[in-house]
């Protein structure tokens, strides 16, 4: 089952990368604010069971894909 994990810096965590991106967007003339840069992980999980896949993905996020002190995550499963 194909899954996408979105990792974001938690609210309130300083995100210098987001600030740099926002500043560049402003230089290009876009009226933007509060840009935040996270990370995206696409992965195939070897199960067709949605509940099992979600459970595994949550463990992946907690053990490796995120640092819970500074990052939150969101899991998206591809519709079968």
């Amino acid at each position: 089952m194909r899954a996408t994990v979105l990792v974001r810096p938690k609210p309130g965590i300083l995100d210098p990368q987001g600030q740099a991106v926002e500043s560049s967007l402003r230089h290009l003339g876009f009226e933007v604010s509060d840009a935040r840069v996270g990370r995206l992980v696409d992965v195939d999980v070897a199960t067709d069971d949605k509940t099992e896949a979600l459970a595994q993905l949550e463990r992946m996020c907690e053990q490796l894909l995120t640092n819970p002190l500074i990052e939150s995550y969101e899991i998206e499963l591809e519709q079968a």
Partner: protein
Amino acid sequence: MSDARPVIPVIVWPGSNDDRDAQLALERLGVEAPRIWHTDEALPRETAAVVLPGGFSYGDYLRCGAIARFSPVLRAVEAFAAEGGLVLGICNGFQILTEAGLLPGVLRPNASLSFVCRDVRLNVEQTDTPFTSRCVDGQELTIPVKHGDGCWFADDELLGELDANGQLVLRYAAGENPNGAIADVAGVINAAGNVFGLMPHPEHAVDPLLGSADGALILGSLVDAARLSLAAAV
């Protein structure tokens, strides 16, 4: 005090690059410092302390230190630390220890987003640790940093707790913070007092020829503590 040379292994991951400097610095302080490959599942039996060196283990993929923490040797380091063994993490080693949960907080990209490589002045905030015992209270040290991800962070609650416990052992001197670390924190010790991590590189400051020998105070403190543990074990 024992005349035997304490054994302080230096762990090597793919991408470590300060392991030889750490080895050399420790050897000059009278220590045997074998370099241990990350796939080893055990530390040498006579290990008196362990050093996790600087570098870019696993290319800093995902987050600095996030992959190295799963290497077999780290299980051995965790077991060693759990029994009170002395563990020192320098730069990437510090990052690995925070990712492994052996030290509090996390190291994030520098606020400037730039790699920084220069001498910094540090204040020693605690001298009653095995890593700073050769320093005097309030002593200022000059030790170089070289990192892109040295911005130590803890939320207010954790920061307050660490401060109250005296765990914020090293801070950048006023105006010196090179990375935006919260509360100017440069080095943190665990609650038990046997695991310490710092962003500056003491192994690069062990001889006046290098611009400073202040790093030898940190490593020398560790060597003193290792000798004591050796003597206690006899």
